[in-house]
Every structure is written in C-alpha cells, then in structure tokens.
C-alpha cells in the first residue's frame, strides 16, 4: 500500500488489527518517507533500523489487544528514551544517552508502539519557530522556508508531513498548540498533572506538560488515553479518574455553553484571524452549542507573567547542565572557568537570554517586584478562568495571532516572537487543558487553528467539542510533498 503514510492512526490500528497491514509494512512506509524527507530536518536522531527490527518482532507474535499495536512513531527529543540519544535540541546534551525512559514514552511502548526516532525542537523547548535548535531549523511541510512553529516544531512537521502517524510534544506556553496550528494538525495540551513529567527534560516545571499531536481529533484522543497516567515518580502528577477518551468521544455537544472571551480580540490581530474565530463561533452553534460572551480581564498580563515565571524556573532547571556529570564540557582553567565556557558554548542565544532573565527576576531585591508579583498575577489569571467556568463549559479562541511566518523573519525580534504565544500562554499559567484544531487557511493558503480551552481534567469535553467542530470544518491540509525529490 503506497498510501500507508496518509492513513490516520485510527485507520492504521484498524488495518493492523484486521491484519490488512503488518507493523513491518507500516514501519517501513514511515521510515521510507522519513528518509526521503531529510530536507524538513524533522529528526535529530533516527532509530530506523532498530524500529524495523521491533516491527518484525511484533509481527511474529502480534498482541492486537494493545492500543497502539506495532504503530511506529517518532517523539520530540525532549523525552528521555533509554539507550537513544536525547538532546533537547541543545549542544550541551549532544552526546547524552539516557539509561532510563520517560513515563509518557514508557506508556506508549507498553501499548505496542515502536520508536522511529527523536524529533527536532527548539533548544530546551524555548522558542516558537524551532529556530533555536542546535540541530538547525525545521521546515514546515506547508511551504518552503516556512517555520513549523515551536517548540514542538519537528513533531508538528513530522505529523503534517506524514513522517509519523502521531507524535507527542510538550507544551510550556503553547509549544504543542502553536505548531499544530502552523502545520494544520491537532494538538492537545492536557491539564497540568495529567501526564507525568518524569523523564522529560525540564524547561519550566510548573508549566510543562506533554501532550499528543495528530492528524485528527480521534487519533489525539486515543494517544491522550495512552499517555495520561498517574505517576508517583512525579510529585505534581494528579490522581484523578481518567476517561477512555477515544471510546467516550462524541460529536454530541448540544447545549454546551462555549465562552468567547473579549480580551482575546487583541490590537493588530489580522482580519483573517478574526474571521476564522467568527467562523468557529458559527460552527459550534451549528453543532447545537451555545456561545456566551465572557471576560477574562487579566489576559493582557499573561505574557509578561509567563516571561517571568518560565525563565525563572528555567534558570534553575538548567543549572544542572554544568559540564560536570554528563553532556558537553569545555576545558577550563578552573571550575568557574569550566562552567562559564561550558555554558557559553553549550547553550544557544535564546536559552542564555532566558537564563539571564530568570536569574535576574529571582535575584534578591528583584524577587518581590518580579517573581512574587508574577505569581500573584498568575493566581488572578487562574481566577479569571474559574469565574468564567461558572458560566461556560469551555472557551473558544484563536490558537495564534497569525499564521506561520518565514524562517528568519522574527529571529532578531524576541518580543515579536514571544507574542506568538499570546493566546496559548494563559492556559498554561492556569494549568488548564487546551486543544488546537485546524480550522481554515489564510490568504496565503497557510493553516490557521482554533483553540478550545477546558476546565481542569475536562479533556473529554474539549475533545468532544473539537470532534464535533472537526466534522463541520472539514479541514483539508494542503501537503504538496514539495521537499521530496
């Protein structure tokens, strides 16, 4: 079957279960397409040969009761994978091979999936365009020299470009939803505490969450069902009753109340984004849901709050990369000199910028004015959502204030780059689930996404809304295979 890579996860699982396809067939197809797609630069490390071996082994004695039977998949290179190099997109970890597996990937392999390789991302997940990766920028399959978004840029590119049927990313301020929006795929950031952070290279611990990225909502629901488990190895993991997201998925959202927050109508937002939002409002109404205008008054403080909290945590989380124990080490005259050279040479500019911001806002004399105040504002932002959820079941917003931009377009303007996350960041600060679904195209033909934000632990509800809208939107991603020679 030549169109294996065009199939959704759901179709592939069905075909493997019906024995129409073997894991080897599927794995081979994705490996072949991945090999022809080096121009996308989606992979940092491939694991193709072992993947094929695993597929063959699976086929010898296939366990078809598993949720991901023999399904190959590549994952963001922020997840530690046992015996497979894990770089976090950084030079400082360019030789790091973990002896352990992250809980989220462990869950995936336990359900029968097979690792294809490790996908490119912004260095330590710090970026919105995948341009901060030590391993080079990633091309968006939509168009040449277009960023795929970030930080899960390699993941988004690999799913949109059909190099992997599904993948997982991580989302600290929008790193799943924004690239999903830029590449025309579905991406879910689960509730904070839903997926274990154990074995994920940390960026900002109070915001980081792993989540699924897929071609459609159903695939996304299935993968979420696999990765979301309570984990005693992560003290922030929450033990709540998790749904069978894919089984319980329904398009019936009649009577659901959807909030439309006026504060997301930001200055200078392109008309096509506003139009898309209006279309989205119409879609949910067509599905039988009701829309209600709401206010999230502290929205405009979200971005500055985020750019204090996230760098503060990052500056401390990244202190362990000091050349002493593992990873890159530069030669130095003494300990301090070694630290300075290792970290100056090992970290890229954006990471260094955030470490400096983080160190500054935590410094004595500035802590109260920045970090402490940011924590207070964070609480206000969360309160906004709590208030809103007294009236509505979910909230609908655009995913991003623009479509994908050209590679290099914003690299010299960090603030304009940071503005990309304006609609996604509040969700992380409040610890809520949010999903981005492709909802249309801009005038250049680039995909645009809509975001549905849910109540904490209410992934099922936003998946259902997304599922219902998906049918009405009937989005078709325009993938021309331009990069395949």
């Amino acid at each position, binding site marked *: 079957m030549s169109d294996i890579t065009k199939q959704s996860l759901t179709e592939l699982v069905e075909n493997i279960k019906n024995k129409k396809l073997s894991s080897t067939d599927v794995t081979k197809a994705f490996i072949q397409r991945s090999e022809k797609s080096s121009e996308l630069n989606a992979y940092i490390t491939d694991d193709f040969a072992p993947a094929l071996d695993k597929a063959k082994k699976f086929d010898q004695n296939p366990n078809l009761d598993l949720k991901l039977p023999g399904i190959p998949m590549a994952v963001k290179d922020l*997840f*530690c994978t046992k015996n497979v190099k*894990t770089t*976090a997109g950084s030079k400082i*970890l360019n030789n*790091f091979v*973990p*002896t*352990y597996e*992250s809980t989220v990937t462990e869950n995936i392999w336990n359900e029968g999936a097979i690792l294809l390789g490790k996908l490119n991302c912004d260095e330590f997940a710090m970026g919105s365009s995948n341009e901060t990766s030590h391993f080079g920028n990633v091309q968006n399959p939509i168009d040449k020299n277009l960023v795929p978004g970030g930080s899960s840029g390699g993941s988004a590119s690999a799913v949109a470009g059909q190099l992997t049927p599904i993948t997982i990313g991580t989302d600290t301020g929008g790193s799943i939803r924004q690239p999903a929006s830029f590449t025309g795929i579905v991406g879910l950031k689960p509730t904070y505490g839903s997926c274990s*952070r*154990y*074995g*994920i*290279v*940390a960026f*900002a*611990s*109070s915001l980081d969450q792993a989540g699924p990225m897929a071609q459609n909502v159903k695939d996304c629901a299935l993968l979420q069902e696999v990765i979301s488990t309570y984990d*005693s*190895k*992560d*003290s*922030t993991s929450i033990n709540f009753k998790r749904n069978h997201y894919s089984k319980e998925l329904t398009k019936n959202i009649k009577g659901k109340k959807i909030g439309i927050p006026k504060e997301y109508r930001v200055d200078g937002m392109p008309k096509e984004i506003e139009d898309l939002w209006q279309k989205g409002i119409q879609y949910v109404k067509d599905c039988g849901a009701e829309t209600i205008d709401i206010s999230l008054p502290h929205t405009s403080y979200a971005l500055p709050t985020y750019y204090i909290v996230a760098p*503060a*945590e990052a*500056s*401390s989380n*990244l*202190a*362990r990369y*000091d050349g*002493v*124990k*593992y990873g890159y080490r530069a030669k130095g005259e003494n*300990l301090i000199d070694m*630290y300075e050279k290792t970290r100056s040479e090992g970290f890229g500019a954006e990471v260094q910028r955030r470490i400096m911001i983080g*160190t500054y806002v*935590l*410094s*004595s004399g500035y*802590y109260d004015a920045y*970090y402490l105040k940011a924590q207070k504002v964070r609480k206000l932002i969360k309160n906004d959502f709590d208030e809103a959820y007294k009236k509505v079941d979910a909230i609908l917003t655009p995913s991003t204030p623009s479509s994908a931009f050209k590679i290099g377009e914003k690299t010299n303007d960090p603030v304009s780059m940071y503005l990309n996350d304006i609609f996604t960041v509040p969700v992380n600060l409040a610890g809520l689930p949010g999903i981005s679904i492709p909802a249309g195209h801009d005038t250049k033909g680039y995909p645009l996404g809509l975001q549905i934000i849910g109540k904490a632990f209410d992934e099922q509800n936003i998946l259902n809304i997304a599922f219902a809208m998906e049918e009405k939107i009937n989005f078709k991603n325009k993938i021309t295979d331009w990069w395949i020679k």
Partner: protein
Amino acid sequence: MNKKNTEYLINRKDNQYEVVIGLEVHAQVLSESKLFSSSSTKFGAEPNTQVSLVDAAFPGMLPVINEFCIKQAIKTGIGLNAKINKRSVFDRKNYFYADLPQGYQISQFKDPIVGEGKVILDMPNGQKEVGIERLHLEQDAGKSIHDLDPQNTFVDLNRSGVALMEIVSKPDLRSPDEVNAYIKKLRSIMRYLGTCDGNMQEGSLRADVNVSVRPKGSKEFGTRCEIKNVNSIKFMQMAIEYEANRQVDLIEEGKTIDQETRLFDTKKNETRSMRSKEDAHDYRYFPDPDLLPLEVSEKFIEELKNDIPELPDDKKKRFIEEFKLSPYEANILVSDIDIAKYFEEVVTKMGKNKDIKLAVNWITGELFAILNSKGLEISQSPVSAKNFAILINLIKNGTISGKIAKNVFELMIDGDKDPQKIVEEKGLKQQSDPKALEALIDKIINENREKAIEYKQGKEKLFGFFVGQAMKASGGKANPQLINEILKKKL
C-alpha cells in the same frame, strides 16, 4: 578572661564583654534512604555507589519526598517543644558547585516544617532555656575531594540528597560551656527520638556558629560572624573563644567588625575570613516547582506525638521521684539514651529487693571507669545489665563485700561472666555465719590478749587492728559489718 561565678565574660582594661552565640546545627536525619530518592544513606560506602539518577540530577529526574524523613523532622520538632507547621514549602537554593549536581539545594526557606521551640539546659548554676528559632529539612551536597590528584577534583555523590535537619537556635547562648550543654542536649533528645544518631565523627551532627560580642549590660547585639561547618564540640568551643577575643580586640582597637563568614582552622586554632557579606551568594530562593507545598494533618501530627518516647527531661523527673536520685545523678543517667536504658535494665533485673543507690554508684563509678579506659560506649559495655544487676544484688544481700565485688567485676569484664559463678568458683563468698566468725574472733582475741586489755583501757584505735586481723584471717571474705558487731561485743 575570667569566669566570675558562672558568667562568661571577656575582660579588657576597664571593659567587660558578653559573648552572644547562636547555632545552626545540621543533623542528619536517621533514615535508610535519602530525602528525595530511594538511595541508601549508609556511611562509609565506596564513592558513588549510593547515587540514584535523581541524586545525580539527570535530565528529567524529579524529587519525590520521603515520608519517613518528614516524620523524623516532625518528631524532632515535638522533642524540641516546637510548633509544627501544617504547611511547609520546599525551596530551591541556587548556587553552582561541583558536588551540587542539581545546581541548587532543595531546602526550606520561608516556610519551614517546624517553628519556634525551646530546649532546657542543666547548667551548674541552674536551668537555662534556649530558644529554637526553627527547624527545616534540606538536602546534603556531595563531597569534593581535592587531594587525590594534583590536577583534578574528584566528586563523591554518596551524601548528595541525604536528608538534613537544620536546627536554628535563637542567640541565647552566652558561653562555650552553654554551647557544649546545648549540643549535648540536642544530641540527647534526637537520640532518644531515634531521629539522628548524633555521630559527630561521621558528620551526622555539625554546626555553623554565629558569634558576636557586646559590652556587658548592653541590650543591643554586636555585629556577628558566622563560623562555618564545625564538627566537634571541642572545636566549637575553641572557635568561639578565639572569635570572641578577636572581636573584642577589634572593638578595643576602635575598629569595626565586618559581618562575614569565617572558617575555623583546627590546626592553628584560629578563625579565618572566608567571604564577606558583599561576596555572599545570592541564592535566588524560590519554591521548588517540582514539589507541591507539604501539608500534614492534625491527625498525622497527633499520631507522631503518641509515638514519642519518654524524653530526657521527663525521664530525669521520673528518676528523681521514682528512684529518689539526686538531680545530679539523674542528669548523668538520662544524658544519653543508652546509659538510661542500661540503668533501667539494671533496675529491672535487680528484682524486688534492690539497692538503686548502690547500682547508680557502681554505674557512674566502676562501670564508667572501665568504659572510659577502654574507650567504649555503654552500648558496647563488656558487662551486660543482667550480670551487672546480679553483682549489685550480691553486694546488697551480703554475699560479697564491696571490696571483693571490685575483684569480681574485674573478672566479669572478660566475656561478660556471671558474677554468681565467679564467686562460687573462686570461693569468694562472704563469711556471714555468726558462729564461725565468733570462733575466729575468739581465737584472735586469745592470741592478742595484751592488745585487748589496752583496748579496754581506752586505746580505741586498736579496734581497727582487730578488724584487720579478722579480715586477714578470713582471707578478706568475712562480713565486715558482722566482724564489727562481734568485736564490739567481745572486747
């Protein structure tokens, strides 16, 4: 410098200075595993053999609190009569060092697990209360070893992540003697609780010492210096003496004292500047986002309270009431949990007709002497409490004299022998048969007629001569009390 009565003052010309001391004691939590990982905490293992991925701060590794360590800290807080905080927060203390793998130490900064408490010291001139400011939990760092290689530093992470309790006192201590008493009391309480083994040689207990001086009578504190990481009481006392005198000298010379961190050089017996206040690290404390605030319920605390054994102060009170001991004796016996245990076992084993006073004298006399000479702890005593109790009973019931008992005790040491058997085998049993003794005394009086007459005429000193003769004739086994009685009658 002189000690006037009990006050510790430093004298210069016409001025007298008082020394103000506060201690930050780092006590290793007695626990099989570390504060945030399951690695062993055993002392003395090969370098880097007790290190988990969490302890070595591998990417994506997360701390998970060890509930046992929390219980230990709360128990210690209860033992210090302190407020237990139902909500406490773990913070990150950020700094770079080769033996600090995370690049930060997880500690408690603003919201410690234990708040204010107090400790009572028994000083020669009475009791003294020392305030406890707080107790918080934190991770220990690893160890940098600089002397194995001329070019490189080696790092041993076995200690990395081991749970420490930092117990901060109020600046209530006024002399090296009080510091000695305070450390010993803390150590004693924690050993009773089983929350810290108090082993200073292995580094389970060490302290940062804050010292300042002020003119006698002044209410304001002087500028303090912190002497880092002193690991024996003797060194603490030496460091305080040196540092207090250094500060007084500066004041006398009209100079000012810089607030700084100093190191104590044990070889030169002096403190040296390590870093000034300006050079102090900015630790950028902030709540560790990998750990939720620690919340404990009233029930959890109550259950631990029920688990608290009798502590030294209560035990002392009971010993005085129940056994009619003097406060001095009681103090000695309760100062260490193992001594108290030994004593109480001896009391139990002595049975109904016991002489506690005699047992106390023998424990603090003969037993302590032998332990001292052999450099042993009471837990390693060569004589078990059981055999010790038998020995005391043998004295008490007149089977052997105190003098013979000393010889028997010497023999018991080798292999914890039963004193009863020694007495039987060696025929050391005291002669207490009045008839036999009377016969013996009659014989002596007969043989020394002249002296007997002299005695009767008033030369009372000769009584001792007859006792001596009688003891000699019995081979030292005669019951001296009976000999006395019979002699008095017969002479």
